[in-house]
């Protein structure tokens, strides 16, 4: 398969996904998690179904924009998310109201998460800083072990993966939160891992395939490693899919971006990183020729 030659197709596919994400983000906004914005999340097992309006009559006293959902297999677990951060006594007021109406006990107050707005800002800033540091660290390592052109191509592929996963988040309206950052960093690691395997082959083939141009070199290297790329993504995907299907909501939140990231990471290592590397090499080669003429 001549992957490099059809690079326009691959670039277009990625651009389309990212564009849809961008348009959706502009239209509907991003669903930021409470650990980034500050706020409260509470879950109660009601053992019965209830109407959103009934619940809203309780929560309106605390936050009129609270989001109310029913989750769990029977849809009897009430999940309340507020932008206001409610402290323990306020949360207990909500609980007391529910206690009298639905006869639940304290054991049914399954979980509560609360973040003050200042903490949210700190967590968010740290998250972005850590992604930046990780990317720079990888760029330095790859430049050191390979050469700068590989480093740049790998980082572009990484950037692609971040945008694609972000687009998935926006399109499916999954909250951006701390697990998102951890998942994102893993995706970075995984994606670069995949890319390195292809680049490593290019580096090796350069010694033995001197008569080939960059495009053929990259194409051959991809064809030699594609089976491995697909196999490893498959084994990792099997593990994560099992987690996603079997897991509880908190772990699903984590597994979904990993799934998107692994697919995107494999895709980008084959269809983005190597074509970009060829483009960089050909451009610098032309420039060198021009220097030679002058």
């Amino acid at each position, binding site marked *: 398969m001549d992957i490099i030659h059809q690079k326009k197709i691959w670039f277009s596919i990625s651009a389309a996904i990212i564009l849809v994400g961008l348009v959706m983000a502009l239209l509907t906004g991003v669903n930021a998690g409470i650990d980034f914005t500050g706020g409260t999340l509470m879950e109660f097992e009601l053992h019965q179904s209830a109407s959103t309006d009934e619940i809203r009559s309780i929560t309106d006293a605390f936050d009129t924009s609270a989001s109310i959902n029913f989750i769990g297999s029977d849809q009897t677990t009430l999940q309340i998310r507020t932008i206001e951060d409610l*402290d*323990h006594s306020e949360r*207990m007021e909500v*609980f007391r109201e529910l206690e009298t109406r639905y006869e639940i006990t*304290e054991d049914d*107050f*399954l*979980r*509560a*998460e*609360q*973040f*003050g707005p200042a903490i949210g800002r700190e*967590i968010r800033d740290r*998250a972005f*800083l*850590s992604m930046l*540091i*990780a990317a720079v*660290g*990888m760029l330095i*390592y*790859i430049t050191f072990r390979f050469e700068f052109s590989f480093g740049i191509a790998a980082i572009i592929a990484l950037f692609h993966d971040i945008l694609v996963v972000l687009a998935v988040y926006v399109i499916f309206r999954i909250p951006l939160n*701390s*697990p998102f950052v*951890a998942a994102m*960093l*893993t995706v970075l*690691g*995984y994606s*670069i*891992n*995949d890319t*390195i*395997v292809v680049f*490593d*082959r290019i580096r090796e083939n350069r010694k033995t395939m001197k008569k080939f141009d960059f495009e053929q070199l990259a194409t051959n290297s991809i064809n*030699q*490693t594609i*089976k*491995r790329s697909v*196999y*490893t993504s*498959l*084994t*990792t*995907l*099997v*593990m*994560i*899919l*099992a*987690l996603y299907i*079997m*897991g*509880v909501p*908190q*772990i699903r939140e*984590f597994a979904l971006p*990993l799934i998107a990231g692994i697919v995107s990471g494999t895709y980008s290592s084959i269809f983005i990183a190597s074509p970009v590397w060829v483009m960089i090499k050909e451009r610098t080669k032309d420039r060198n020729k021009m220097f030679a003429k002058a």
Partner: protein
Amino acid sequence: MKAKGLIAFVIIVALAITGVLAAVNGLQIGGAEITPVRDSIKQGLDLKGGVFVVFEADTTATGQELDQLINQTIQVFRRRVDAMGLTEPTIVQEGDRRIRVELPGVEQVQDALDMIGKTAQLQFVTPDGEVVLTGSNVTDAAPTYVDREPNPVVRLELDSEGTRSFSDATGRYLGEPIYIILDDEVISAPIVQDQISLGTATISGNFSIEEASNLAALIRAGSLPVTLNEVQTSTITASLGVNALNRSIQAAKIGIALVFLFMLLIYRLPGLVANIALTIYVLLVLAIFISLNATLTLPGIAALILSIGMAVDANVIIFERLKEEMSNGKTVRAAVDSGFKRAFRTIMDANITTLIAGLVLYQFGTGPIRGFAVMLIIGLVVSLLTAVFITRVLLKLLISTNLFKNPRYFGV
């Protein structure tokens, strides 16, 4: 050589199986005992249930003054938490004015949060608004029963200053109420019948025995020296956590089984070897994780499962190389040697770049995310050992038996 190789191989496999059994069920050899992984691994709040809360001191104090306030607060917290009889609480200062409290395994999470967060300022106030006693005058507090009172009461022992002041007040306000106020809330207002100069006082209310002992514990621990705001909380009931753990273990089992099957189908003999190495890998990662006394969290489990996928990756790289070398006409033995050699560099580079992400996560992440990073880092390092060296040793042992010369065994 033939038989030796086979015997060594069988011994390694037997050890791996024993390891798995020990990890799942525990093991007892003579006096030594290995507890099952599930009991010996330290579980995080999200698996065990419990309370995590970060308080911020609401004060204008700075420098040494602030430090002192924070230290006093931590002391009070510690006494309160000890009164709850919890096993492994964490109470630490975070930054300048924050205190992080973690109470894993606590059963009544909301009550526990109630207990820690209360300012617990106790005051005895006369009808004229004069404060005659505060919590600092109390030397001891205990729940007890008294005559003519169906509900339990809290009995206070007073220090000398408190005894004098209380005796004086009860003398002056005979027949009038004395208000007992806890955190701006009147909890009882007994009418003074006699002057009390024995150095004791009781607080009655409609307490259950549990409420009375909680109140006594709060008074004993003292009041908080500063107002605290909750800036971050997480409470989770134990049942929710246990469910999360069970479901994750189930997911891991299914995932591992599918990966084993995949490796066997695609790579045959090396696939079998990889599966043995993978088993050893999981055992080693868990053993190191336990010996570091690291805390297993939900994201940590995700990292373990992810790292299994990545450990397989190293084997896939090696085996694909192996197949390539064999298709190029090399003998099994020569192909194994050059395959491993060439694949090792790829695996190193790939793992180190992922390691960079793991280290950054560890440095910048908090709580559960840190658990994820620790597992990822251990996983990456161990996978180099098992996927490269153990697979290689096992494969060479098998090849030395000369039983597997046909490339078919290698999926070629």
